[in-house]
């Protein structure tokens, strides 16, 4: 049976938390870190997807007023609101250590979400995967995204346990969040601690991947790389809220058009 690392580590800085995500992935790529399941939490913050324009998906002015950081992750997908009522999980894995070929992105989402779904089953919660979102009673309790680097994959997701949906609805440009989102605390008969939830998800991943998760810490190399990534990327406004499109998806337009398209 393979042994993976279980890492329960959060920084109080959302930018550093994302730098750690990328640092672990890079160290895994160089075979200096093991496959890992990480649990982490952010203080109130908004995390946007790599391709998103924050001005289109986030109430930037309100976030500034409330002191809520907006940070960008390396994976795609939509914007999410984090607070301590939200538990994040991340899987870092070498594709070579998986039995099945997970070149098919949809299949890989299904595989990684199954760890969480299995864990929720232990709590008596029936949930299912829908394109990387975990759904309970038609409402989303978890969203996830992936980033691939050579033959390593980062799959990370949220699990809404007791998120402040009121603030979420104000910070994200989203209508009626309470109709489409659900917190675990809304359906669990007894409130259990976040630590207990981590425990069942750990069991879920062990079962679905047939591995043993062993508690570990960040390596020195991971810390150093995270610090560097934080310095050159994640702490920078130019990365989180850039003036120019930093992704390559924008269309080549006359400058007059481009100025009109800009929402900031």
């Amino acid at each position, binding site marked *: 049976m393979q042994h993976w690392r279980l890492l329960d580590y959060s920084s109080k800085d959302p930018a550093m938390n994302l730098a750690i995500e990328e640092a672990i992935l890079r160290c895994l790529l*160089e075979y200096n870190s093991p496959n890992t399941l990480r649990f982490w939490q952010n203080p109130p913050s908004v995390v946007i997807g790599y391709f998103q324009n924050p001005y289109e998906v986030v109430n930037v002015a309100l976030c500034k007023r409330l002191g809520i950081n907006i940070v960008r992750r*390396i994976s795609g997908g939509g914007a999410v609101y984090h607070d301590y009522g939200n538990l994040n999980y991340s899987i870092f894995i070498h594709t070579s250590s998986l039995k099945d070929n997970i070149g098919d992105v949809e299949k890989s989402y299904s595989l990684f979400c199954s760890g969480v779904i299995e864990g929720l089953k232990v709590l008596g919660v029936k949930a299912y995967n829908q394109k990387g979102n975990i759904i309970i009673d038609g409402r989303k309790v978890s969203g996830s995204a992936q980033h691939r680097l050579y033959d390593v994959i980062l799959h990370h997701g949220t699990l809404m346990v007791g998120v402040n949906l009121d603030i979420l609805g104000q910070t994200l440009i989203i209508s009626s969040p309470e109709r489409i989102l659900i917190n675990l605390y809304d359906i669990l008969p007894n409130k259990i601690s976040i630590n207990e939830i981590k425990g069942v998800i750990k069991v879920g991943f062990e079962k679905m991947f047939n591995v043993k998760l062993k508690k570990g810490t960040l390596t020195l190399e991971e810390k150093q790389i995270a610090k560097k990534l934080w310095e050159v990327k994640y702490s920078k406004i130019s990365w989180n809220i850039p003036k*120019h499109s*930093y992704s390559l998806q924008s269309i080549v*337009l006359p400058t*007059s058009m481009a100025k009109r398209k800009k929402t900031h």
Partner: protein
Amino acid sequence: MSKGWRLLDYSLNDPKMDWAVNEPIFRSRRVGLTPDTLRLWRGPNTVVLSTHSSYEGDINHEACRKYNVGIVRATSITGDVFYYDMGSLNFTFAVDTSYFRHLVKNYQPVLSEYEVINESIAKGLHKFDVNSKADAYGVYIDDKRISEAMPLWFYDFLLFQGTLHINTNLDIYKEVIRTRHFEKRVALTSLSRELGKDVPVDEAKKALLQGIKEKLNVDFVEHGLMDDEQNLVHKLYRVKYGLKKWNVDAKEPFLIGMGKTAVEVFVAYPPTSMCRKLIDMVKSVTLDLKDKVEVMIWMRGRGIQQHGPLPEMSDALRSAEKRSIIPAIIINGELKFQGSIPSKEDLRKAILDTL
């Protein structure tokens, strides 16, 4: 003070070659090799498809065969299929439009640029005492369209390729293009139809030049194609305009600048040690090919500005970014290697195959 434009009076009498000329003119303007350019030219019976027109759906192929009409596809972002013949006067504007903004009162991005060019054409037609008018979509005489064009943008640079119907045979026009197009379109006319007599095309050319000169406040200096443009005409004929792949299927090769082989390398930012190894390898493999190959290292997350203010990138690169394929090596717009570092030999061979 008026602006100096190159005037290129250059026709090749072969539809595919003629259309292969327009793109190098545009490219050389973009890279700053040439000034703003107006090409005036004529060609045999031809139907011109825009990039997004349907080869099967928009043309009556039987009529094309009957009248020996050539078919060619233009690189454009929009535009309706049109027809020209030796009675038409074709024009190609390859210009930096930032200059145009000062010529328009209520400036509207993109539309004003089309409008000002069309107005310059309409002004030229005034010499024939016709009631010519223009808007962003065309040039008209008494609400009938007399000129058509297809635009292509690269940042502020505009390629505006079209035709002015001087003595165009509009009966053939209506046969070779599928009739559904005429139901939606403004009625067509030609200068000869309006005047009731044929007009020497050279006379129309002089009037057109005068109209453009006055409206756009430019002076023309006659000059031929530059060597680099000439070379690119032949290359583009070989890899694009002369091929079914482009004219029928609308699939075009990705070319950069003046047509060097483009090797796009997509890596992480900041580069991992494996990415650095890959970058070094690509550079060493292409060291002796610098005059034929352009290597562009794209770092994910460093934005489109990482290669200067007017970067060019292929759709395959965008797709690699979207699908998070790191690393990716794209040669002339085709994804050749992905997810791992290729051998030096394989990479070299893939690049040499394009030369």
